[in-house]
């Protein structure tokens, strides 16, 4: 199927409230079947739309004197359908968030903390379970790795928040426990479109809820990976607490490495509506795209 994809993007890096790198990019790709002719042709309308999204983000970046801030705004058109994206990746004291100007709240740096010495149940705050599920369900689904072990009360879906994907095809929600993502996305005009997650939403439906007295509370995740060969999930936890009754001790960053099937079996409880985790920048095949991430407060048994 033939389609014309056009994009304009502005990508800036701010450090300590000062702009240090600014990149403009624009171009179009004429796609016929498996052949793509790409050129850096500028579309004034898309360039203007992308640049307009930068103003509010720059104002926020300028005020953050202790942060590293990356701002990316883009406007794209596939045939006649246009949409925009604007994201801010903010790092303060080792804590990174991906957000938008509308939802921006400043991350709080944390003190060093203790090293976890034992495997404990985990309470996933702040929608952070969505990152675990992004790896264990979403990326696994991209490789046809599905599990029958997910709790019956849990749904994990990819729900695009735009109507037409980057190949001109209407988007639709898919159940990531049984289907691979279906939305084709590309990072730029020079990239091959590939099926990617867009917005992962985990929901609980009458889930059990029993909060362990002795546990780890996870607040922020610095990154994650799924290795399709071994079906192992790796998460780098950047902010967590060790909780023992009333006692709360800040933990040093640590890594979890666990089999995909083990993740599915480990989910034992959840509560409330899906919470928006502040962002996942997902890198696959060298293409970075932002994936929305929502999950309720969730409990897993120890993940080892």
């Amino acid at each position, binding site marked *: 199927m033939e389609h014309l994809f056009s994009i304009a993007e502005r990508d800036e890096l701010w450090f300590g409230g*000062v*702009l*240090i*790198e*600014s*990149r*403009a*990019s*624009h*171009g179009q*790709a004429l796609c016929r079947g*498996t*052949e*793509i*002719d*790409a*050129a*850096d042709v*500028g579309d004034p309308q898309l360039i203007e739309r992308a640049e307009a999204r930068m103003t509010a983000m720059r104002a926020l970046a300028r005020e953050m004197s202790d942060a590293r801030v990356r701002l990316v705004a883009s406007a794209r058109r596939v045939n006649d359908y246009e949409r925009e994206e604007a994201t801010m990746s903010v790092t303060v004291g080792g804590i990174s968030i991906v957000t938008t100007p509308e939802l921006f709240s400043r991350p709080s740096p944390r003190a060093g903390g203790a090293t976890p010495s034992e495997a404990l149940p985990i309470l996933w705050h702040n929608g952070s379970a969505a990152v675990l599920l992004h790896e264990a369900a979403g990326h696994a689904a991209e490789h046809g790795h599905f599990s029958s072990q997910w709790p019956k009360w849990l749904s994990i879906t990819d729900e695009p928040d735009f109507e037409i994907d980057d190949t001109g095809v209407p988007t639709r929600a898919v159940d990531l426990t049984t289907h691979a993502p279906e939305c084709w996305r590309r990072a730029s005009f*020079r*990239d*091959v479109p*590939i099926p990617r997650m867009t917005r992962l939403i985990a929901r609980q439906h009458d889930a059990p809820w029993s909060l362990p007295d002795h546990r780890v509370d996870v607040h922020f995740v610095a990154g994650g990976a799924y290795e399709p*060969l*071994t079906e192992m999930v790796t998460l780098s936890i950047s902010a967590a607490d060790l909780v023992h009754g009333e006692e709360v001790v800040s933990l040093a960053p640590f890594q979890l490495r666990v089999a995909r099937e083990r993740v599915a079996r480990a989910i034992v409880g959840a509560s409330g509506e899906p919470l928006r985790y502040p962002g996942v920048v997902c890198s696959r*095949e060298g293409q970075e795209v932002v994936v929305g991430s929502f999950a309720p407060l969730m409990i897993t048994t120890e993940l080892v």
Partner: protein
Amino acid sequence: MTEVYRKRGRVVRYEHGHVIRSIESGEAFDDGHLFRCGPSVMTPLPEFRSEGGEVVARIASMIAPPLEIERLIVTEGIAEHECGDIRWTEETNRIHLAVKHRGMRVIVDLADFDLEEVRGAIGALYRAANERPAPERVRLAPNVSAALLPSLAGTDVVELWQSAAEHDGKGLPVIEQRLIASPWPNWFRPSYRTRPVRMPLHLRAAASGDNINYGAPEAVALLAPVAGNVLHVLCIDGDVVFPTTIAVERVLAVGPAKRWYPYGAGSFGAEMLV
């Protein structure tokens, strides 16, 4: 003073069953504080005859079930660079191949279209048995040693040299010299969109000995990207092929540099005894 860099290029890339023909030109300005870049209007470079499609077909014909291509990217490009008063041209070919079999993945990165090492890696993967401890001595094939060298810069594992070349990322001559510690003498700029960084270019290893022990097991292919001085490789010992993990702490002998590989800012592969 603001440094101005301009580049125009044409690339043909074969990736995931697609062929992408891309034409771009751009410029970058760096005043030491702020780096700015963006597309610029320049006359496109002329089309070139692409052989990437044939290369993809040749590689695909080498790989049959139960082996499976996980990733195959073949790229050909030409580019013209301008930095201040210096102008230069380069042509590039690249292959990135990942093949999987029985829970293992061999990774091959090449800067030309000679596929002999692809054939060797695939043959070893097909015959691979279970993981074994690292042998006491291992002979690294050139494609494996080349991948290792960039992460050895600044260490005392082996004597490293930067090889001379006409231009670095700022158009300056690449100086032939022994590399001890950063700051490295030359600049690496893989794209006009990337701020140039000091990096060791065109690395090669040297050792007091060149007496390669050909009786030692040979590491012929990478099973994972190099992590520091740690290699996860496929090793051949006689008739047996096995995966193993080697922490390279000392290089005992280095053979002559044979082939340039696209690791880091470039490195020359040579047989190495570790």
